[in-house]
């Protein structure tokens, strides 16, 4: 069902994305202001691959639960456990099978790339590799979680309820992060949705990738521990606590890693190379105190367009947000609200500008560094393409489901 549904899911996303892309391209999209919007990564691939995100949340968990909990439910596990194979090897084998299945499920998304290329669209491989890697990691997280829940619970339906509850829980963390800021915001940065969003922008952060891997290993480890039906429950509990502590420690350590790579063609996660060179000349730690509430649009502007890029170039950057409320609406008249204070080795200055250009100007002026001249060639102009998604409907709504149906029938016959 997962494989069957992926074609139409990808088809809807791809056809709609190509239509929107074509509409924007028709509106003189080559102007510098909208160039970023005409990056295929943001305009076509992020929405097309979002079908994978949807499937990873609502379809893949049930496939994983069926594969892991089904054995326990049917009694097959009691037979398999007597084979002598370690439960860690068993869960690894099942995970590899699931991941292989997931790669097959991603084939419609890959075929969308070929279609796009046939339309004359531009393809930038590094950002597509990043996006694919992000969705494979996300699938790994789902598999790890579903496997752990399947092993911990007696019944597959309980495992499904718990898996979806935890997924919904991560959405709540995202919501609180957006409203409350602070630690909630920090935690929200490591949820699967936030991780996928980074990959959708072509950003690879070492801490995010490692934390995702730790979480996957933890889920699979817990699954393997609880698959050992012959081991006393109290021992399994102690071992699970041990794995949990180890995972928590590893995750905490990973949060200190700052390495990241911007693989997007549009450099949407980075300042221009000239600006980055100039910023790297500043070795003194920079401290920024922004008096903006979590839901204030200016704070989102500041964070997404300036500070997230700045953190990548200046790892020692310290940012502190100060606000008395979450929306900031009733703080507007308060003295100091909206102010952004920059502190560089005791030299302080204040600005209210939240654009990337404004932030850079303030930092250069505070550090006494000459702003680099703007290089016209370095500006990403986008790849406008006003075409119809010819043949996509036939492939995604007809050929793909048909192929899956025929393959399922053939596979069923060959197994007998």
């Amino acid at each position, binding site marked *: 069902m997962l494989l069957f549904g992926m074609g139409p899911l990808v088809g809807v996303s791809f056809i709609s994305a190509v239509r929107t892309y074509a509409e924007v391209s028709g509106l003189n999209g080559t102007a510098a202001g909208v160039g970023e919007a005409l990056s295929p990564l943001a305009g076509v691939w992020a929405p097309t691959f979002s079908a994978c995100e949807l499937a990873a949340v609502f379809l893949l968990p049930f496939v994983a639960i069926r594969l892991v909990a089904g054995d326990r439910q049917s009694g097959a*596990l009691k037979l*398999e456990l*007597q*084979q002598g194979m370690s439960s860690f090897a068993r869960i690894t084998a099942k995970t590899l099978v699931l991941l292989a299945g997931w790669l097959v499920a991603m084939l419609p998304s890959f075929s969308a790339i070929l279609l796009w290329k046939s339309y004359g669209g531009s393809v930038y491989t590094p950002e597509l590799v990043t996006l694919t890697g992000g969705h494979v990691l996300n699938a790994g997280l789902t598999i790890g979680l579903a496997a752990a829940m399947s092993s911990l619970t007696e019944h597959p339906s309980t495992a499904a309820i718990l898996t979806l509850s935890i997924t919904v829980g991560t959405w709540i963390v995202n919501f609180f992060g957006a409203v409350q800021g602070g630690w909630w915001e920090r935690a929200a940065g490591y949820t699967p949705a936030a991780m996928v969003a980074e990959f959708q922008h072509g950003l690879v952060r070492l801490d995010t990738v490692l934390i995702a891997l730790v979480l996957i290993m933890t889920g699979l480890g817990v699954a393997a521990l609880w698959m050992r*039906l*012959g081991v006393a429950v109290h021992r399994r509990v102690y071992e699970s606590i041990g794995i949990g502590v180890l995972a928590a420690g590893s995750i905490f350590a990973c949060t200190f890693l700052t390495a990241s790579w911007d693989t997007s063609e549009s450099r949407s996660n980075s300042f221009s190379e000239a600006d980055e060179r100039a910023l790297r000349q500043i070795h003194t730690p920079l401290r920024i105190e922004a008096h903006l509430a979590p839901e204030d649009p200016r704070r989102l502007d500041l964070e997404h367009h300036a500070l997230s890029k700045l953190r990548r170039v200046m790892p020692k950057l310290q940012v502190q947000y100060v606000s008395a409320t979450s929306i900031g609406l009733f703080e507007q008249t308060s003295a100091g609200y909206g102010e952004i204070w920059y502190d560089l080795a005791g030299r302080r200055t204040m600005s209210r500008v939240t654009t990337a250009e404004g932030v850079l100007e303030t930092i250069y002026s505070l550090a006494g560094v000459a702003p680099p001249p703007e290089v016209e060639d370095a500006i990403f102009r986008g790849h406008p393409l006003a075409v119809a998604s010819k043949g996509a409907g036939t492939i995604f709504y007809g050929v793909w489901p048909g192929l899956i149906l025929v393959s399922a029938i053939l596979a069923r016959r060959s*197994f007998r």
Partner: protein
Amino acid sequence: MLFEVNGLSKRFGQIAALADVSFQVRAGEVLGLIGPNGAGKSTLFECLAGVLPSDSGTMRAGGRTIGARQRPSLLFYVPDDIAPWAAQSVRWVLDFTIGFLRGRAALREEVIAQLDLHPLLQQSIGTLSKGQRKRVLLGIGLLTSQPALLIDEPFEGLDLRQARDIAAALRAHAVRGRTLFLSIHQISDAARFCDRFVLLSSGRVCGEGTIQELAALAVAHSGSRPSADLEEVFLALT
């Protein structure tokens, strides 16, 4: 002696499912584990097979303790009333047993014939009746290569003719040296088929031996008249 069990105990909360269970299993014998429903027969088998943790007790073979990791090389347990790999065909399950569970490929055709599995080979496990499924489970067990085979209720769900055929098939494997340890709640079935018996009641072993040995034990235990009827002996000892 193939192996011996000493002081095996298992509790589920306040309920003692097994209490200080001890007995011996001899190589090549057909040993019957006799007891009413709820006596702890399945629990005992699961603890022996290492698919359920016991609270205490040991298993010894060849003078050394056999841990949970060594048990797969000594014995294989076939649970009652399971439907493993329900979507797969009987043929697939038998081949999987040979491949994954390291079963004996040389016995494949013989086991299929003995258990009359030919007509079922194409059918998926999920569509089989209880009796058909039982035959497939027995097929899985007979294909495995461990010296001892533990089968929970081997005749459950089978009609009289099937039960007799399967008893003959099991006996044929026992004659070749395979040790069979069968949990049977129908005492009359057990009396016909097994060489020796372990009587289990409320998680405790009430007696172990041949019918004659158990009858003598019953006389000593309750002072009743000697009887060769296993049911009478069981009632006298429990």
